[in-house]
């Protein structure tokens, strides 16, 4: 296991070095890092309680006391956004982490063994991808119902097929290479070949897709929240905040503006890192840069 771990570590170190040269990706990394810090430090940063209602001060415009104003229940929007970063980050990272484990495993198995198993797994993937955009997520959420954990599970299931498809493609191209032939000639068993030889070589691409998918997971959870199908109030989820502020946004547009801006920053941060990583790992694009 030591060698596998080292290979992965080397690859990560190399990609980090390459990534730091990419300016946009660095910006993205700082954005995400800031969000993580905000999430951790929310209790100290937030000027007010994010849940407590203050019915005497509804829909106040931004002021010194309430830098982003108050919502329809007089709650401090800034505090809610700060706490909300915990929710969005947790949903994004956990759901994609779960999807990654399942999706990568299925992709490895499908690509390596081929045949009937591959056909079976890939047909399921095709069918899940036959739903337009996040309608699959909507369908799953109908079944599971709203709520924090259900949203994580929903987005995890919804994200599995893309991982499977990407990893299977990678395995198919790696399978032909000499090092796999050599491993087979040495008499390595199948699970060793899959997890110690194929997996480490797929890790960079998996990280690229994972990062990009975290962005879209945050986006989908906010969409579900906005539609009233996601996390339930009074949890300060950004999409939910935006949705409940909609009714008042004629007179108090700040209730809608700030949560949406927070969503954009989070998604953009992950997308920038993902794009940067892709430039690093996609040799065709790298050539372009060198030229």
């Amino acid at each position: 296991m030591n060698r596998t771990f080292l290979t992965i570590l080397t690859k990560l170190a190399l990609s980090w070095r390459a990534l730091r040269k990419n300016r946009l990706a660095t910006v993205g990394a700082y954005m995400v890092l800031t969000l993580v810090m905000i999430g951790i430090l929310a209790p100290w940063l937030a000027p007010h309680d994010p849940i407590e209602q203050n019915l005497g001060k509804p829909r106040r415009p931004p002021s010194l006391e309430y830098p982003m104003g108050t919502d329809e229940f007089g709650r401090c929007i800034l505090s809610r956004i700060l706490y909300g970063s915990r929710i969005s980050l947790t949903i994004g990272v956990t759901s994609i982490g779960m999807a990654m484990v399942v999706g990568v495993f299925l992709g490895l198995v499908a690509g390596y063994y081929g045949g009937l198993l591959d056909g079976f797994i890939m047909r399921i993937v095709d069918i899940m991808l036959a739903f337009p955009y996040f309608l699959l997520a909507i369908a799953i959420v109908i079944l599971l119902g709203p709520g924090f954990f259900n949203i994580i599970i929903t987005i995890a299931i919804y994200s599995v097929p893309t991982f499977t498809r990407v990893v299977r493609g990678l395995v198919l191209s790696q399978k032909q290479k000499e090092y796999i032939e050599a491993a087979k000639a040495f008499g390595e068993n199948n699970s060793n070949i899959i997890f110690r030889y194929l997996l480490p070589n797929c890790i960079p691409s998996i990280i690229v897709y994972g990062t990009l998918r975290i962005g879209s997971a945050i986006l989908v959870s906010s969409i579900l929240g906005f539609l009233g199908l996601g996390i339930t109030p009074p949890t300060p989820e950004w999409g939910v905040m935006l949705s409940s502020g909609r009714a008042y946004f004629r007179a108090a547009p700040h209730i809608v503006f700030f949560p949406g801006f927070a969503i954009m920053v989070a998604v953009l941060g992950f997308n920038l890192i993902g794009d940067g990583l892709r430039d690093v790992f996609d040799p065709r694009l790298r050539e372009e840069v060198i030229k």
Partner: protein
Amino acid sequence: MFKYSLKRISALLLVLLIVSLIIFLIMHFAPGDPAALSLGITATPEDIERVKKEMGLDDPLITQYIKFLKNAFRGDFGTSYYTKQPVLSELMALFPATAELAVASIIIALSIGIVTGIISALKQNSIFDHLSMVIALLGVSMPVFWIGLILLWIFSIKFGWTPISGRLSVQIDLRSITGLFIFDSIITGNLTALKDTLRHIALPAFTLSTISTGIIARFTRSSMLEVIRQDYIRTARAKGVGEMAVVFKHALKNTLIPVVTVVGLQFGLLLGGAVVTETVFSWPGIGNIIVISILRRDYPMVQGALLLISFIYVAINLLVDISYAYIDPRIRYE
């Protein structure tokens, strides 16, 4: 070509069959008792028992699914719990609104995306290139409903240029023929209605198009960058063909071939995105009814709408695949 199409169509039928099974199962296991839901809150336990029998809810699952499929083939998707009307006729009444919105959005996305992509590629690393790619990245990262609400605030509330919601002002009379209001007002020569419809559709269509514009722009850009370096382009330039002719007569056609494939995928994004956009702008289409019906627990309606949208999406992808195989014969032999 015929054989390829046949193969693709049979694969499509299988996918649709399984998609219908998944949707059926989801609705079956969704919380809430259909018999009670269809009767409303005033129902007595005896009523619920009776309706359960009538609806065949005590039958084995497989029997219920086969019955559901049989009915669906005949165009019977059940009755809405809420309006008590047949689901299919309700959906058909809403469908033109979504179709009009999706087509308008794809036209906007294609025109802005392709033009920006081409200019970016031809002026690679210029300010225009960098700026448009940053905007494209922003477009992918911004939640659609947020863009929609901000546009609504600027254009409808601040300036009053566009209406807040709907497809047509109440006081305007338009004879509906196809249900596509732009089309209808053109063929009936009703200019007032045309102007009003366009004012209504402008914001929703633009909002929805933002999902796709960035992707199409980035795709066109990289495709153009690849094509412009090919030997035949160099030959054309060497022959002394003008730059405009090189771009539009030689490069453009080959640039757009791969773009065709993304258009199919974009329709999926647009149909899904329509759920959000229609909710923001109260656009009376399929996407809007999906959300409303989920909140009302009107499952037959949700089921029918999801089936219809998946069917359209799969069918569009099939058309794109076949046309792609037609444009680029190499695909057929893969």
